[in-house]
């Protein structure tokens, strides 16, 4: 049974009711997908009804992160080439773009960078369906946004702790909230019925050795997070590297030298990837930029 998440600060909870609403089409599509008679065409039709969303999804999937840059001409094609799990992840990510950009500067760039890096790690490790791994990287910090929106005071306190005590964001979260965004991620993934692979990556990327059933996904997202921090593209809330888990590399069967190719690919594709973002939907010429 789903419950609200209680933080260690009295009275401050993360409530299910206040979670960002996902696009309506996602609900409908998730139901469709469970029916064995549903065609890709039918799914595409439903998603395409939300034209604004579809345009964003197409922009995302045509970036170098997803294996077929510039080749995907329609939602239907994206489903055929990337599969539903990936498209669902992209839909979720684009729908929280606004909230992310407004509430935690640099987090969107960090997430896209992590998607790129995690996909590169998966490719180097010769894993199947690397785009699913990319989505793990894309969504790995969703929990931070949820906390920022629902508990702005505590969010501020976390930032303070990072600044004054030189903590990593994850450490500061644990000090202030009593748990890290990995816990929030697990809760989120449960509520949004995300596939177990993505859920595992979201909840275990800081401790991939604790992954229960999908250590490859957790390990890849962990290494992806490390890579994007080395390059300081965007921000996960602090300017430190995460401790790189030797075990994670072992599980992926990668050596440090193998990572060089990942670094190469990351630097090369950063320019393209940085173009992926969306004009604010409620642009008000009078307001200016904060």
């Amino acid at each position, binding site marked *: 049974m789903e419950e609200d998440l209680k933080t260690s600060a009295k009275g401050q909870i993360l409530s299910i009711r206040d979670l960002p609403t996902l696009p309506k089409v996602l609900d409908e599509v998730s139901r469709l997908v469970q029916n064995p008679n549903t065609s890709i065409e039918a799914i595409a039709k439903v998603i395409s009804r939300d034209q604004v969303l579809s345009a964003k999804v197409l922009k995302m999937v045509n970036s170098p992160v997803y294996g077929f840059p510039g080749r995907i001409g329609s939602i239907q094609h994206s489903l055929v080439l990337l599969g539903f799990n990936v498209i669902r992840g992209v839909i979720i990510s684009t729908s929280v773009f606004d909230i992310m950009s407004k509430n935690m500067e640099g987090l969107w760039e960090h997430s896209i960078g992590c998607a790129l890096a995690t996909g590169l790690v998966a490719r180097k490790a010769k894993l199947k369906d690397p785009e699913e791994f990319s989505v793990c990287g894309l969504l790995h910090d969703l929990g931070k946004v949820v906390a920022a929106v629902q508990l702005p005071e505590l969010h501020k306190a976390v930032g303070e702790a990072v600044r004054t005590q030189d903590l*990593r964001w994850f450490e500061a979260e644990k000090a202030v909230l009593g748990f890290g965004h990995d816990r929030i991620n697990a809760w989120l993934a449960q509520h949004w019925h995300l596939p177990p692979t993505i859920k595992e990556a979201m909840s275990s990327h800081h401790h991939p050795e604790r992954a229960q059933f999908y250590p490859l996904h957790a390990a890849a997202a962990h290494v992806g997070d490390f890579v994007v921090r080395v390059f300081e*593209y965007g921000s996960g809330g602090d300017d430190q590297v995460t*401790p790189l888990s030797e075990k994670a590399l072992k599980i992926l069967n990668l050596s*440090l030298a193998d990572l060089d190719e990942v670094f190469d690919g990351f630097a090369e594709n950063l320019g393209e990837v*940085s173009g992926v973002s969306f*004009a604010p939907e409620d*642009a008000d010429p009078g307001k200016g*930029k904060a």
Partner: protein
Amino acid sequence: MQKIPLTLAKAGMKLAKPITKANGMPIIAAGVELSDALISRLDGMGVDKVFVVGDAVAASQNPSERVTRLDHLFRRMGDDPFMSKVQRHLREYFTIKAAADAAANGKG
């Protein structure tokens, strides 16, 4: 020079390329410094990307910059032997890349 979405533009950044109308006619010249007012004007005009001087992607992609940042990024890793090894490896990786870049630019 870096192409960024308008949403990430901040006052103080300088335009690296002019803003032009669809037919190519420049309406705001290169070199102009962005202000909040100008940014919201651009937003109202439907501009969604601008080329600005310097910045984030460039810094990420610049290997010399990466080398100098390593100590700062790894500052709390202390004596951990594995992380020291990782840091050394990264230093070597970026140093070689920086040298390769310098050589290529020297010839260009």
